[in-house]
């Protein structure tokens, strides 16, 4: 036969368990939120890095940069007489 104080203990344990479950879930969600924030920041950082590298590649490959350097090396743009297009057979 469960006495009154046992009931009290059971209720107390149940209450503590419920509180623990709530706190554990909140802690887990906070950790997940922090991890998510970190990942988002990482992704934004990587995207920013990619965009910056693309911009630098495009600038480096632009005619404004390449042509003066090529001219210093004695290179020049070909005239149309120097461009040979090899005829392609039509598909059968």
């Amino acid at each position, binding site marked *: 036969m469960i006495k009154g104080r046992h009931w009290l203990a059971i209720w107390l344990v149940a209450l503590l368990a419920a509180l623990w479950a709530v706190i554990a879930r909140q802690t887990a969600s906070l950790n997940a939120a922090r991890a998510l924030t970190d990942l988002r920041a990482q992704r934004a950082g990587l995207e920013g*890095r990619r965009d910056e590298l693309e911009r630098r590649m495009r600038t480096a490959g632009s005619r404004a940069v390449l042509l003066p350097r090529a001219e210093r090396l004695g290179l020049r743009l070909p005239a149309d007489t120097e461009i040979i297009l090899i005829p392609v057979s039509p598909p059968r």
Partner: protein
Amino acid sequence: MAKPAVRLGVVQIGLLAALAALVLRAAQVQLVEGRRHAAEAAAQRTERVVLEARRGMLSDRHGTALALTQETYHVGIAPNELRDPRGDAALLARRLRIAPRELDRALRRRYAWFAGPYTSLDVQPLRAVRGVHLEAVLRRFYPSAEFARAVIGRVGDDGLGASGLERLLDSLLSGTPGAAVVLKDRAGREYESPARVIAEPTPGDDVVLTLDAELQEIAQRALDDALDRMDAEGGDVVMLDPVTGEVLAVASRHRDGTARPSAFTETFEPGSLAKIFAAAALLEHNRVRATERVSGEGGSYRMAGRPTPLTDEHPLPSLTLADAIRVSSNIALAKFAARLEPDEQYETLRAFGVGAPTGIEFPAEAQGKLRLPREWTGPSSTSLAIGYELSVTPLQLAAAYGAIANDGVLLQPTLIREVRDPSGAVRYRHRPEPVRRAVSPQVAARLRDLLRGVVEAGGTGERAALANFQLAAKTGTARRVVEGRYAPGQYTASFAALFPADEPQIVVVMKIDNPQKGSYFAAQTAAPVTRSMLEQALAARTVALDRARLSNVAPTAERAPLEEPDGLVPYVVSVPYAPDSTSAQPARAVPDVTGRRLREAARTLHRRGFRVVVKGWGVVHHSWPAAGASAAAGSTVTLFAEPRP
């Protein structure tokens, strides 16, 4: 002195009254004002925040990003929270690129705020610093700031498109913002708890433009170099794919430094570039034979009704129509054009799109000027034949020359190639959108032959000639209109070219305003610059040229026919901003334009391949043939209009 029992009764009544007041007040607070107080409490504890949607990307036809959205940051610093104020300050000064003294001054305040915006690379080392608070904001970023700037436009401070395509495509690009609820403490600071997302933001659509980044760079550099070398006031270059109507490059530059898309928005008198349209009218109406000659009049000829004589720079004794185009003879063209009725001349110019906006997806496109024949004066017919008394934008000219390249079919030029949703699925893809047939395929072929002669020995466009590839082109040197008057000694040099002459792949229109150093003639200015651009395009790796077709063998890629056997357009698709909804129907029926304004109705019919005659003014009352009736392509639909009730 009252008895104790009475005093006790009074106290009890007082207590009861106080208790009743408390109960009533509690009831008022809970029952009557409960909702309001609950809302106030929620507002103090929570805050609804807007989750910005990422704006869609603009890219060129090969996928090169032209405008994209990046996450950037504002930086807030709470000096009293810094663990190592001296070391942290040095790091902050370095990452935020702020002078140490200025940062020291800022850190003496309770809270320092730096708007930046700073990139994620800048702030990455600051994330671990206690006391540094980062606020993420989305910012529009243009990897090549000067790339087609006037066409692409910019977004305003509010994040919405403010000009150019950014403005026009704003509804597509901007996406839908989301919303979330965050928890706050008593001081109003957000808790570091997960936000409750009410609605996820939907990113905007990505738009692939028709521009070709490499051709664009070639055009911009060539224009810059030419304007600097010639000390010109400004200029424009338009490159167009005549088979699809796609604009491949568009560059505009002005001496005053303004970034105006003048290739779309500013008109000029094209001069000799318009002579080919007079030739088109003569050929279309069979008013001239190939061998027929007119006298060159020794280079000066006074026509009835004209106050000044017509002159030619390099007169020939006698000229055929081909000679007249080849040497750009004003006198011969004027004599030939005198055989045309005003209506015939007007209709041909209209058929090539003169005096009507092209319909490109760009805000504030200019429509140019072409007066009705009843408003012409005596010399108007001659003036129009040699490119005066009308005005066009460089884009209109490119579209009109594109029609000559495209077997006589005028296409609506476009800047939009594809629209993709955030998952990458294609929501819209451009298909060639015919406006109307300007001339028959046979006449278009004859016109290309005439233009081919311009680039041959003795032609005005000789300096544009390429050794291995045939070009069809026309030069134009016209007096320049400034503030409504011809400015003495000022000229506009322009050049239009179809490359190559057979099965043209690119139409180039170049215009140079008031070149002051060296010659002002297009033959010496715009023509050689165009040749240089074409040579660079040939040498480039990724430009939109089909080299298989260029290699002078039988075409390997079959061009999609623009017309079905009976001569009507195969389909007309709606572009995202399409002003009329009826054009998406593939049916050959006359569209119902009843109740529409005349301009809108005429435009709808033009896009379906019909010619339009207007009776009356106001809104359309009915048409003949009636709405829904079948009519052949190129036939005339008469609109009967009545004043708006």
